[in-house]
């Protein structure tokens, strides 16, 4: 858990800088030379299917706020219940999933929102979650459902309700988008 803010990304490969300096950055969706529409429809199709299966067979304690999804397919609100027998029993939380048009190749942006942010060593008081599958361990084969399950299991395995030790500083200084934080994962026990 915990994070540092600077973890330098790999240097831009030299040969790249040299060989195509003049080429403008093309928009992401057209980089494969495919029409934008096709990309979008695939993106929408996947989100629709995920939504359907979440509504039809939701994992225990997880419900999608269908109203929010109807307004905007790229922002989902998902309610999640604290399981019985855990420190969060009886509490209700809300997660916000934001998808960009590179989903599922790019990970969704996931935060806790609303009045009740779980007090947990991996959850900052602004709702940011330190969970490796949300950034570097993301795989397109993961889904909203698997992310919800990971978060639920993260909550369930918690032994002591407390904020991350660097909560105050982080909340003051972080970017709005948790994906901009270079997370530093070093505690898998909770």
């Amino acid at each position: 858990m915990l994070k540092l803010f600077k973890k330098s990304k790999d240097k831009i490969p030299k040969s790249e800088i040299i060989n195509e300096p003049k080429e403008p950055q093309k928009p992401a969706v057209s980089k494969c030379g495919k029409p934008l529409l096709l990309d979008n429809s695939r993106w929408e199709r996947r989100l629709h299917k995920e939504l359907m299966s979440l509504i039809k067979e939701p994992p225990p304690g997880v419900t999608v706020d269908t109203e929010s999804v109807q307004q905007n397919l790229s922002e989902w609100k998902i309610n999640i219940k604290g399981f019985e027998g855990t420190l969060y029993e009886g509490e209700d939380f809300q997660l916000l999933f934001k998808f960009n048009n590179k989903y599922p190749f790019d990970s969704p942006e996931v935060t806790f929102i609303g009045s009740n942010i779980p007090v947990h060593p991996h959850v900052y008081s602004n709702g940011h979650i330190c969970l490796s599958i949300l950034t570097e361990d993301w795989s397109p084969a993961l889904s909203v459902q698997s992310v919800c399950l990971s978060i639920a299991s993260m909550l369930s395995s918690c032994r002591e309700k407390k904020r991350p030790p660097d909560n105050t500083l982080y909340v003051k200084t972080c970017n709005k988008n948790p994906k901009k934080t270079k997370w530093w994962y070093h505690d898998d026990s909770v």
Partner: protein
Amino acid sequence: MDSDNDNDFLDNVDSGNVSSGDDDDDFAMEVDMPSSTERQLETDDYQYKVLTIDEIVLFQRETIDEVNRVVKLSAHITRILLNHFKWDKEKLLEKYFDSSDDNTEFFKCAHVINPFNKLPEAVQQRTLRSQLEECEICFSLLPPDSMTGLECGHRFCLNCWREYLTTKIVTEGLGQTISCAAHGCDILVDDVTVTKLVPDARVRVKYQQLITNSFVECNQLLRWCPSVDCTYAVKVPYAESRRVHCKCGHVFCFACGENWHDPVQCRWLKKWIKKCDDDSETSNWIAANTKECPRCSVTIEKDGGCNHMVCKNQNCKHDFCWVCLGPWEPHGSSWYNCNRYDEDEAKAARDAQERLRSSLARYLHYYNRYMNHMQSMKFENKLYASVKQKMEEMQQHNMSWIEVQFLKKAVDILCQCRQTLMYTYVFAYYLKKNNQSQIFEDNQKDLESATETLSEYLERDITSENLADIKQKVQDKYRYCEKRCTVLLKHVHEGYEKDWWDYTE
């Protein structure tokens, strides 16, 4: 030569750059002519090669083939293995044969499915696949021929693979280290698969660049030329600190990539650069404006008030005198005057401070001289331009093209001497005094004064009266500089061989 002509010439000197027609002429002397010292250094047995991108790719292929003649795996697996071992083929072969009884671990570490086990499983999987399969990424049901995967058995549709690989290559800049798209699977995607699944030429080019780059950066015998916009890499027979000269003209040290820094060694240069980055300006100011508390050494800036100092450091609170740095108590009530300059305690305190300060002064001594030569070298281009102008003027004075070339040569040698001198100060900073270091310092001093004289000659205006005279002087001086430079370097190298040098750190 009549007097009119003479006046013309002088006018020309005064007008400087105004004679615009000349600027368009090509400067004939820009053709690369290594000076004799350079040639000397290059003619030893260190046979390096400057490679173009294509030659690097070829070299990469040759390395793979070479390993494959022994291990007999597919080229794409060998490539991943080589990359895992940082393109050290001996290490790969050693590990490979170490694990020849059971190479499961060997392949697992390199994130490859063991090619000796894969067959039965793959056959088994294929027989099961007769109906539609669902792609776990786009959730589409597709016939088996639209699905593909690595040996790990995780299958996704061709479109999703293409999209996944493109994202990894273009957005994340990954090349040789892209793993399977399945969650938690660390099996690496090989280059053949990438080329097969990514049709877009632009992405393929980028992928090729990424893997070429990782090849050069991992490989101990290769280094990119550090010059901006240069795409060459240098390939050496064995990695060590050597002067290499790229085709783009840049001269650098193969081991560290810095400008060629003979006589100082890479490790000291690295230390030095770090030190300079850390504290040069700050320590300058501190030295000039502060004193340290004689008890706790906290740095104090005195911005007014009397000489009775009370250290603000809460753990110290030492009372002392700003003038003599001795304890305050014996000063009694003489608040403004210190007449205790020679008391023992005060002396001890001043001595301790003196030591700290002299180490700083020592550093600044070397730093200032180092920076001075560096600054002078930055004027190199300006000097080349003014010398070019002088050469033209001299040609108007009935000297032939060939006769005026000595000036260009003189600037070459001047720059070379300055560069050497610059690094001698880094070397000297870390050097402990002994007999040999004194010889070195004499050499340094001699070269420095000769270099400064040469520099002065080159700045001097050339008039018709002193033309022959100055030519002789310049030629004598640069030959002398060149000789002294060689002597100095030889002496330092001899010291490396014979272990003469002791270092301060």
